């Protein structure tokens, strides 16, 4: 499937700031399920700085903007050709071994309820690693209903579970937490998702989790949509949690003004030109 992506993030400050520095992980991962046809990331007014491919295979660019500045806009456009690999991350070059992703953070720490959820889900699942991973993803999807606007960027997995509602970030955190309880390496993945015409799919700028499944490697699970990533998904980068994997992580210098973020994302199937 050919997907066209337009993604604009506009940061508006209520007072001019002296400068802004951002780490951007806005480039599609190099892996078997996707091929970049065209891609550009543009931050008007910014000095492009150090770039590198990090240990987990993500392309990271650091940009800096000297103020005074009141608005910073990051514009992403591109085209990606995708194929369905049933969620399996193939041909992805990375150097971090899976056991590193057994580490929990504040947002992916499991409390008693997450532990209980894990054990309940795994009991009927048997010993087959892939089945266990599916069982966890299913349990999380069931325990946390999708409802936007109720949780915050800093909400933890435990808080989301106790509230019973959340967005894709909360689902991913909860699944990672459960996986850790089961001693399965798990990580947070960001990317784009093409919305279907029937409106079933939430959040074009998306996040899900990858669990390390023996014999298969890393496999994506999207509890928010109760599926594994397929050809509608474009994978960007990964990390321990939402903060660590954030596509844009920035810091404002000189003052702590109120910040307002406007995001526009469209992911659409590429229209074939008819001869």
């Amino acid at each position, binding site marked *: 499937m050919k997907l066209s992506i337009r993604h604009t993030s506009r940061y508006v400050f209520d007072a001019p700031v002296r400068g802004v520095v951002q780490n951007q992980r806005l480039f599609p991962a190099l892996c078997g399920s996707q091929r970049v046809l065209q891609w550009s990331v543009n931050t008007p007014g910014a000095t492009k700085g150090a770039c590198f491919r990090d240990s987990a295979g993500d392309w990271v660019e650091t940009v800096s903007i000297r103020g005074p500045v009141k608005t910073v806009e990051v514009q992403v456009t591109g085209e990606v050709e995708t194929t369905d690999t049933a969620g399996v991350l193939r041909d992805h070059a990375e150097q971090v071994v899976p056991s590193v992703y057994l580490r929990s953070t504040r947002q992916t720490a499991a409390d008693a309820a997450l532990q209980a959820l894990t054990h309940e889900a795994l009991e009927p699942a048997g010993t087959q690693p892939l089945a266990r991973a599916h069982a966890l993803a299913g349990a999380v999807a069931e325990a946390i209903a999708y409802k936007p606007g109720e949780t915050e960027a800093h909400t933890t997995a435990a808080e989301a579970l106790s509230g019973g509602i959340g967005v894709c970030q909360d689902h991913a955190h909860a699944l990672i937490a459960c996986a850790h309880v089961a001693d399965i390496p798990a990580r947070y993945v960001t990317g784009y998702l093409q919305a279907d015409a029937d409106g079933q799919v939430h959040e074009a700028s998306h996040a899900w989790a990858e669990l390390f499944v023996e014999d298969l490697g890393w496999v994506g699970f999207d509890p928010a949509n109760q599926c594994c990533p397929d050809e509608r998904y474009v994978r960007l980068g990964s990390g321990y949690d939402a903060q660590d994997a954030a596509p844009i992580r*920035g810091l404002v210098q000189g003052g702590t003004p109120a910040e307002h973020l406007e995001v526009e994302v469209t992911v659409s199937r590429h229209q074939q030109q008819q001869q």
Partner: protein
Amino acid sequence: MTDTGIYNEMHQNGGISAAYRNLDQWLDTMPADLRSLKQSEAEALFRRVGITFAVYGEGGDPERLIPFDMFPRVFTDREWRKLDRGIRQRAAALNAFLADVYGRREIIRAGRIPEHLVTRNEAFEKTAVGFRPPRDVYSHIVGIDLVRTGPDQFYVLEDNCRTPSGVSYMLQNREIMMRMFPQLFVENRIAPVDGYARLLKKTLASVAPEKCEGEPQIAILTPGQFNSAYYEHSFLADLMGVDLVEGQDLFVEGDFVWEKTTEGPRKVDVIYRRIDDAFLDPLCFRPDSMLGVPGLMSVYRSGGVNICSCPGAGVADDKAIYTYVPDMIRFYLGEEPILDNVPTWQCAKEDDCKYVLDNLADLVVKEVHGSGGYGMLVGPKSDKSTIEAFAAKIRENPGNYIAQPTLALSACPTFVEEGIAPRHVDLRPYCLVGEKIELVPGGLTRVALTEGSLVVNSSQGGGVKDTWVLAE
């Protein structure tokens, strides 16, 4: 050895050891009143140059002095040569280990060290994986804490691969002794230590990143004047003739890190940081860090700057890894360790834990990630209820503790209220790793000033001594 089993470095069986021979006469020339005069002179000198030490979280005078004992700690050339070889060997192995665990992981694949001890370690840094710092050196200043229990028996207590502190005391103690007792330095051939700053600068310059052309610009990154070691940071910056910067003095733009100077931005090539990994870059680690530089890690990873010690170096000095250092030496260097480890029980292992719990009264128990002498139990010095409370903590989280036998730390003559008395001492030499591995003959001797105490940490009432290595 005396009948107490404690090795007195100066007096044995009525005789005086070679190292301290000349100091016996020196003592005769020092009546009590002259001694107290000299002692207050020394204190005034310390106060004057501003060497003070802030104690973590204890309140009180933030500018109190660290007690200085005028009686020096002495090693003969022969004794030092063994230590010197042993320390270099250890520093080389620790760096080889770091390059390996962030690279090919051979020691893990060979089954010599369990993977989880490395990858699940708090100090293990995901961002460091696969990146090769200049010259493959991760820990540029390695502080090795040593204790002595007999004429030829030294043990390594712990390794410090991040940013070991205290070297300013090593240098200042010597300065003050030379100023107060010049005659001693005429009568004894004492190897100088004042080359340390030059060596440190050379070491840091030798690990400049690829993109640096010409003379590298070096800076020391400090958390600021309220840090307990701020004095040391400014002292070293001054001796090396490099800038002492805080995070707010640096910024990232383009491919490099820049200092804000009165003449505009100036590129920095090597940062000797005295802040923890977690605070280095708020875009990579703790987002609330005000001490670091946003974007620093990206410049580091893309070869625009070097950070000493490298982020993630702490995984080598963890107390759980410590037990494997002798194996590392054999694995990477193909040599037998010159310096011994203290026998260590790991509470994470079931058998070890049982032994530790059964023998708490005879053991020293430490937290795996602790430092500064906090959160430890000294069995023989603790009462029953303290021991029981500690046992409960171990049972709750055994993986967090290791235990060692209480060593009979050697004692060195020390000036006390009543005159001269033996007090327990340890030693921290500072090994520099860059293009070469070098160390100055000496180190920081810490002394437990309380009679019988084994805790030498300056945060808990320890003092310091000048440390001599006698030249041949």
